[in-house]
């Protein structure tokens, strides 16, 4: 059975609580164990790097050290947390002076980091060949024919990890494969790697609203009925600010935005409540209907 140190990140306790519960449900169904990193702290997001890169490093180093103490590799569901933890891990492994200095800081919390673990995005853990096979076997047909735009976001693939070819990050296919394994029908979504605006929603509203508009329009043009995301920032910007886009552009977008784990959960027969579906500001009717249809046919 696969076991990971799970780093939820701050959003998963608040805005993205549904990403957390659905990840847990799906992991459970797939026989995967997610052990939360004990007393984890914020990864620093982009703000710490704006101010001081060493402060950003010290925040991530603490999470890495605790996970190493738990003896497990890390999975993170948020693109930004994943990128920060991953980059810090790589920097600590490559730069002994930096590692020494961070270990001096870590002493203040009785911790030490030896560079003995790896960091992955939670989607990587859910799309290994073995897990994909399990999903194929266990998936029902509730997502059959559902047109899903696979929205990767930025930092899940960028900056490129060493050893990856440009083609692998230019047009990745693992999200599509995962959706297919769950029975859904991923549509070609040209903007799948384009930025959602992230914190610009606070710091430069006009820019972020336009970025979200472009992503929504591109999904509509692609024939998508729902956008699947792998990041709480992407989900929040695309979903909670859809009304803001409609206001700014006199538009009427009503595109449901769900976490990929919520869709996987539906395919694996988890109830919508347990997946947190229904807490959106843009109702995912199409998915709810399918989930219920499946539930009634299952009970009949």
């Amino acid at each position, binding site marked *: 059975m696969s076991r990971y140190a799970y780093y939820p990140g701050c959003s998963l306790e608040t805005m993205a609580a549904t990403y957390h519960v659905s990840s847990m449900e799906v992991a459970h169904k797939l026989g995967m164990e997610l052990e939360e990193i004990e007393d984890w702290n914020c990864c620093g997001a982009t703000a710490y790097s704006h*101010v001081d890169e060493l402060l950003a490093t*010290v925040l991530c180093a603490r999470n890495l050290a605790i996970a190493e103490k738990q003896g497990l590799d890390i999975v993170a569901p948020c693109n930004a947390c994943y990128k920060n933890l991953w980059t810090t891990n790589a920097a600590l492994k490559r730069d002994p002076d930096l590692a020494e200095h*961070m270990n001096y800081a870590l002493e203040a919390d009785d911790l030490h980091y030896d560079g003995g673990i790896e960091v992955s995005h939670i989607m990587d853990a859910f799309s290994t060949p073995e897990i994909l096979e399990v999903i194929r076997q266990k998936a029902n047909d509730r997502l059959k024919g559902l047109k899903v735009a696979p929205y990767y976001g*930025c930092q899940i693939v960028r900056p490129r990890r060493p050893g990856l070819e440009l083609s692998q990050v230019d047009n990745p296919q693992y999200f599509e494969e995962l959706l297919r394994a769950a029975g859904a029908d991923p549509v070609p979504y040209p903007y799948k790697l*384009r930025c959602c605006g992230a914190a610009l929603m606070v*710091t*430069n509203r006009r820019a972020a609203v336009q970025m979200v508009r472009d992503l929504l329009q591109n999904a509509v043009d692609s024939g998508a009925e729902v956008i699947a995301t792998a990041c709480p920032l992407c989900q929040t910007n695309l979903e909670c600010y859809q009304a803001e886009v409609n206001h700014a552009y006199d538009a009427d977008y009503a595109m449901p935005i769900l976490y990929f784990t919520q869709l996987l959960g539906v395919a694996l027969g988890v109830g919508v409540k347990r997946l947190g579906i229904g807490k959106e*500001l843009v109702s995912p009717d199409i998915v709810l209907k399918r989930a219920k249809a499946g539930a009634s046919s299952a009970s009949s």
Partner: protein
Amino acid sequence: MVTTTARTLSFREEVENLLHAEEGASLVRCIQCATCSAVCPVVEFMDHTPRMLIGLINAGMKDEVMASNTFWTCASCYACTEKCPEGIRPADVMYALTRYSLWRDTFNRDWVAPEFSRRFTKTILRTGKSYEPGYAPAFIFEGGFSGMVREMQMGLKLLTKGRMPLIPSRIKRIHNLRAMVARVMPLDGIE
């Protein structure tokens, strides 16, 4: 006796000194191909495109660069960094310039982005975790009254859906975290 005077340092070298531990290629290699600008999703909101900014740095136009909103507008999407044919990492340059503008106090007090980063950083030092409702004020004074009303309406909906906590959570060993930070930022009052 004549001693050598200090080597005059170009602005490009100053910027590259901030990046001495990073992996990107030297900015002198920039061929001004504009690939970075073409893939940048926020380019139209920047005073200078990423290409122009690198060009200005190489030309030593420090005042123009520091007055530009470009690096505070960057969304850190790394599209430029992925595609630069010369191996330059413009996204890292943007971070270097935000640091520089804070340390040398050249940032524009009217911009929301530095204030947001300050609030964010302080929140983590206080609690160990981020707290979204705490950042809204950074936006609200830019969004005007109607923006504020819409923001509050959304906040209320999120609240009723259980997606917006009223109380920020806090890590257990926050004092240890602060002591860690004091070891890399040696100031009184952090611990």
